[in-house]
C-alpha cells in the first residue's frame, strides 16, 4: 500500500505587476501573472509503508519546497500529494518555543500545535521528560536552557507520538553525540514499527545507513531515483562536474551501475589489485599485503595531478580513502601523452565481505575543483578469512591479550 503518492507535483511562484491583481484573483476576476517561476515541476513518486527514502540535491534544487508540500504547509500549484496517515516533520526543532515558559509548558504547546489534546499529551509527558534527560531543568523556563538542551526537548516532543511518515531535514545532529545516538536509535525503532522515513541530507553516511532508496533532485526535477549507493555516486559526480555535465552511467555485468564523470584531461586506464607476487587478485585474505595499481593516461598538460581512491563496503560507506596530495607525492607539471602508473601498497586490515574501490584523478586536495576523472566501482574485491582467528566487524585490528589475576 502506498502511504504517500505524489502525482506530477509542481510549484510556481507567481509575481504580478501589482499585488492588487493577485487580490482581484480571489474575487474571481482572473488576472494573468506577469511572471511565473517554477521551482519544482513534474515530480511523481510513491512511497510504501516502512520504506526509508533519502532526498538529496544541491542547495536550491527544490528539496525544502518538496518537503513543505508533503507536510502541507505549502500548496502545490499543480498536481497533488496524497497522504494516508499522520506526518511529523523534524524540520526546525524548537519551532515556536517560548523562552519564558518552562520545558513542560512548551511541550504541551508544541504537541498541541501538532494536533494533540491535553489528555493525549498527559499520557506521553513522562516519556518526553525521560527521553530528553535534562533533569530538573524540565520545569525551568526555556531561556535557562543551553541550545543542546532545547534541542533535546524539541526532538523528544517531535517524536513523542510515532507518526506514519517522519520527515527529517538535514543534520540528524541533535545535541551531543550521546543524544545523537539516542535519537538515531529512536528513528530506527520507528522505522522498524512501520514508519516511513523521508530524510533530507547531504551526508552520504546517514542516507546510506538509513535509506533503502534515494531520490536526486536537480533544478526542480527528479533526475535519479534508485538505490542510495547509485544515487549518491551520481550526486557526487554532478557536484564535481558542474561545468561540463559529463556524467556517464554504465551498467556492469554484475547488475550494479558504475558512474564515470570528469573532463577527461587525464583518464584512468586500468585499476587492479595485486598480491605479494604481483599477480592480480579478486579474493584477498585478511591482513594480506596488496598493491592497488592505477594506470593513468594524461591527455593535456596539467600543472598538478592528484590520484586518490576510496575503499567502500557493500553498502557504499567509505572505509578508507586517501590521495597522493595527502600522501605528499602529487605529480606536478605532467605533460600530454604521459602514462603514469600509481602503486598503493597496504595491508588489507578489513573484515570479511565485499568491497569496492572508487578512483579519482583531480587537480588539488579534493575532486570538487578540477575533476579529470572520477570512477565509482572501479574495482570490486572480496576479503576472506584464511589464516586469521575468527572475528566480526568491518576492520581487522588484532589485539594482544593479557590476563591479570
Amino acid at each position, binding site marked *: 500500500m502506498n502511504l504517500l503518492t505524489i502525482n506530477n507535483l509542481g510549484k510556481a511562484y507567481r509575481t504580478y505587476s501589482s499585488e492588487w491583481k493577485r487580490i482581484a484573483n480571489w474575487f474571481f476576476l482572473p488576472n494573468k501573472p506577469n511572471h511565473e517561476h517554477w521551482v519544482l515541476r513534474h515530480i511523481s513518486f510513491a512511497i510504501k509503508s516502512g520504506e526509508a527514502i533519502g532526498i538529496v540535491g544541491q542547495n536550491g534544487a527544490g528539496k525544502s519546497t518538496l518537503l513543505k508540500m508533503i507536510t502541507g*504547509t505549502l500548496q502545490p500549484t499543480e498536481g497533488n500529494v496524497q497522504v494516508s496517515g499522520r506526518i511529523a516533520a523534524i524540520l526546525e526543532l524548537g519551532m515556536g518555543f517560548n523562552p519564558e515558559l518552562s520545558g513542560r*509548558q512548551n511541550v504541551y504547546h508544541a504537541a*498541541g500545535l501538532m494536533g494533540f489534546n491535553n489528555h493525549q499529551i498527559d499520557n506521553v509527558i513522562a516519556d518526553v521528560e525521560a527521553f530528553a534527560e535534562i533533569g530538573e531543568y524540565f520545569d525551568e523556563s526555556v531561556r535557562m536552557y543551553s541550545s543542546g538542551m532545547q534541542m533535546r526537548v524539541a526532538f523528544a516532543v517531535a517524536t513523542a507520538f510515532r507518526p506514519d511518515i517522519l520527515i527529517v531535514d538535514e543534520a540528524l545532529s541533535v545535541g551531543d553525540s550521546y543524544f545523537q545516538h539516542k535519537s538515531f536509535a529512536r528513528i530506527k525503532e520507528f522505522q522498524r514499527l512501520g514508519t516511513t522515513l523521508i530524510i533530507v541530507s547531504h551526508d552520504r553516511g546517514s542516507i546510506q545507513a538509513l535509506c533503502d532508496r534515494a531520490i536526486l533532485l536537480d533544478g526542480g526535477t527528479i533526475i535519479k531515483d534508485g538505490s542510495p549507493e547509485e544515487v549518491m555516486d551520481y550526486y557526487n559526480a554532478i557536484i564535481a562536474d558542474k561545468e561540463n555535465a559529463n556524467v556517464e552511467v554504465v551498467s556492469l555485468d554484475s547488475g550494479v551501475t558504475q558512474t564515470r564523470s570528469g573532463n577527461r584531461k587525464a583518464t584512468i586506464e586500468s585499476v587492479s589489485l595485486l598480491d605479494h607476487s604481483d599477480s592480480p587478485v579478486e579474493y584477498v585474505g585478511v591482513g594480506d599485503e596488496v598493491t592497488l595499481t592505477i594506470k593513468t593516461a594524461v591527455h593535456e598538460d596539467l600543472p598538478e595531478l592528484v590520484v586518490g581512491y576510496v575503499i567502500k563496503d557493500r553498502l557504499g560507506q567509505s572505509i578508507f580513502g586517501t590521495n597522493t596530495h595527502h600522501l605528499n607525492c602529487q605529480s606536478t607539471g605532467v605533460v600530454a601523452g604521459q602514462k603514469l602508473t600509481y602503486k598503493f601498497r597496504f595491508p588489507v586490515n578489513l573484515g570479511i565481505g565485499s568491497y569496492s574501490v572508487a578512483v579519482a584523478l583531480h587537480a588539488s586536495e579534493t575532486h570538487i575543483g578540477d575533476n579529470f576523472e572520477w570512477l565509482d566501482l572501479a574495482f570490486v574485491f572480496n576479503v576472506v578469512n584464511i589464516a586469521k582467528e575468527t572475528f566480526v566487524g568491518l576492520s581487522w585490528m588484532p589485539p594482544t591479550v593479557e590476563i591479570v589475576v
Partner: protein
Amino acid sequence: MYAMLRGLWEYRSFIVTSIRNEFIARFARSRLGGLWMIIHPLSQVAIYALILSNVLAAKLPGIDNKYAYALYLMAGVLAWNLFSEIVARCLNLFIEQGNLMKKMRFPRIALPVIVVGSCLLNNLLLFVAVLVVFAALGQMPSLEMFWLLPLTVVVTAFAVGLGLVLGVLNVFVRDIGQVVPIILQVWFWFTPIVYSINIIPDYLRGMMTGNPMFSIVNAYHDVLVYQVSPGLNELAVTVAIAFSLMLLGLFMFRRSAPEMVDAL
C-alpha cells in the same frame, strides 16, 4: 467551512493553552505576576476617571452623578479598546506568525481565534476594573449590563472581520500595516468617546452616524452610563456591517491561504 470548524475543535486544547501561555509569558518574570492583569486596566481607568473628568468636567444631560464624565469615558473606552486591540493584532498576525505557518501544518484559523480569545479576556478584566471604579464612584451594576454580552459579540465580529481583511491584505501589500494605525487614531477621535455627541454641530452629525463604531459606543453609553436599553434600530445597521465584514474576512482568508505562505 465545516472543515474549518472541525480543525478548530481538534485544536481546542492548543487554543486554550496558547491563550493561557500568552498571559503567563507576559507576566512571567514580574514580582506581582498576575496582579498586573488587574493593575493595568485599573490604572488606565483611574487616570481617565480622576484626571480627565476634573480637567474636562462637562455636565452630561440626563445624569446627576458628578463623575458622569468619567463614567461616560470609561464606557466608551471599554468598547473602543476591544475593537482596536483586535484590529491591531489581526493586522500583523500573519506576518508575525509567518515562520510558524511555513514550518508547521495546523488549522490557520486557530491564529485569529487565539487573538480573539486573549483580547476578550483582556476586555473582561478591563470590565471588572470598570465595575470596581463605577462602584467607587457611586454607579451600581444594573440589569441592563447584560446587554454587554450581545454588544461584545457585535464589536468582536466587526473587529475580526475588519482585522482579517486588513491582515490578509497586509501580507501582500505591506503599506496597509503602516497606514492602519494612523487611521485607527483618526477613527478614535471621530467616535464620541472622549467628548459628548452634543458638542458636534448638527450638520456633522449625519456623517458621524455613518461610523459603525458610533452606534456601538452609543449603545455602551446607554447600557453603562444611562442604564437604559440600547436603540436597536441604529445597531441593526452595524450588526449587518459587522457580519458582512466577518464573512468577507473569512472568504478572503480562505482564498488567500494558498498564496499566503508563498508571500511570507
